């Protein structure tokens, strides 16, 4: 029993040490010697893969989540005669919580798993080794552009998610359930703050973007180069990244809105 606990502890420490080491290596690759001429096209290509291709799922999910929020919120608020608070309720839920968190979870599933699988496969087919033998640093050539693309794309996706979600809430709340148009927007405006809500939401999603992209790349880079290894790395990316996002979300929320 004690052995089991000790082994859990040891594994945790080992994996933390491994991830820390990987972080240092990664930072080194990211910060070291920027070469805009070569890295800009790579970044653009990865933003296409990571960002543009996640756009559809983000927009559709955002729209539906906004609509559901409005529908659920209305049935609760109408009992208190406070249906005019529907606007701020939808907007605040999206900006503070659902936008960053759901985007991060969807991103982990859509783009994170793909990143892990891609890098794992590149490792298995010796493409990473072959880069190294061609005197090209795979961290700089393969990992860094994907990392930046994830870090930039996810907050953008979160913004789109929230905006689309608010529009979905507007469609259901105002056009279907008959909340007053003017009140919906003006009450929303007076209770949603630019700094407190919008900016904090963006900060959240930048942190999530960092964590999710990093986990995805780390898992791919350290996967066992076999088909079983890659599939388990992919699963592990989604699970680890989702848990990390939810855990961090609590910490960040406590820091930002708790005090």
């Amino acid at each position, binding site marked *: 029993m004690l052995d089991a606990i000790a082994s859990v502890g040891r594994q945790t420490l080992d994996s933390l040490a491994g991830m820390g080491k990987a972080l240092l290596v990664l930072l080194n690759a990211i910060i070291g010697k920027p070469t805009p001429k070569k890295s800009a096209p790579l970044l653009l290509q990865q933003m296409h893969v990571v960002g543009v291709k996640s756009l559809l799922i983000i927009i559709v999910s955002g729209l539906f989540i906004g609509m559901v929020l409005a529908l659920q919120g209305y049935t609760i608020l109408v009992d208190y005669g406070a249906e005019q608070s529907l606007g701020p309720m939808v907007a605040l839920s999206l900006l503070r919580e659902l936008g960053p968190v759901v985007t991060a979870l969807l991103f982990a599933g859509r783009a994170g798993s793909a990143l892990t699988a891609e890098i794992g496969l590149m490792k298995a087919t*010796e493409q990473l080794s072959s880069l190294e033998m061609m005197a090209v640093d795979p961290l700089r050539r393969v990992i860094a552009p994907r990392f930046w693309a994830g870090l930039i794309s996810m907050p953008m996706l979160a913004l789109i998610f929230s905006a689309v979600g608010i529009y979905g809430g507007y469609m259901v709340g105002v056009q279907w359930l008959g909340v007053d148009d003017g009140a919906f927007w003006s009450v929303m405006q007076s209770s949603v703050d630019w700094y407190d809500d919008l900016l904090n939401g963006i900060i959240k999603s930048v942190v999530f973007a960092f964590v999710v992209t990093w986990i995805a790349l780390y898992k791919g880079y350290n996967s066992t180069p076999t088909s079983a290894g890659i599939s388990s790395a992919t699963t592990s990316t989604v699970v680890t990244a989702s848990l990390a996002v939810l855990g961090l979300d609590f910490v960040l929320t406590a820091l930002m809105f708790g005090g």
Partner: protein
Amino acid sequence: MEALVDIKQVDFAHGQRQIYRQLSLQVPRGKIVAVMGPSGIGKTTLLRLIGGQLRPQQGQIEFAGHNIPTLSRSALYQVRQRMSMLFQSGALFTDMSVYENVAFPLREHSNLPESMIRSIVLMKLQAVGLRGARDLMPAELSGGMARRAALARAIALDPELIMYDEPFAGQDPISMGVLVKLIKDLNDSLGLTSIIVTHDVDEVMSIADYAYIIADQQVVAKGTPAELAQVDNALVKQFMGGEADGPVAFHYPADDYAQDLLARGAAVTGSSK
């Protein structure tokens, strides 16, 4: 004869497993050197040691006078531009066309204008007979073609040394013949030095100038193909002749067969009581 690669008394262990002990071998400049041995004795590891992807616990690995294990990262990257490696799978970048794959090292390491890159790429592709396949993606190539495309990429920067990792594995006789001829021709026409790691004895013996046989963590035989044919060593004979049993046993080490069967029977009857 000047050695381009000089490996002196190298010890290398992968985790708990000792792979080389006091291994020494030389690769003379301009020659084709074959490194052979039974599966699983770390032939690929040897190439990775020369390329500096792995570091030995002890010993020196010199490439053109540079001791690879002691080089700094940037110096290592400088040296790597002078060597290239053909991986077993070809390791073509799957998201680029054949043309872009061959152009890749040129784009990374030179500032040549696009027109010049195009000429070089077409020349290299012509050399391996794939000029017409330049727009195909790696997934559309057969195994032999993928390996030839990778070879074109390997010679794009005109390296001094090419290391082939099992170039003949899993090839049909025709593409095997094509590859054997290509390796020989490239070596002679470009003045390359080649190291071929393989266990396809007949193919490599037809083109190698010199060969090493590695087993039991060491070089067990070396010499020109003619000399090796005369070596009076049971293991070398088994390997060169491709015999099923000999010093390299057919069976993985195990308990006595009859004992094992009886013990198993006893265990079953024991449990049924």
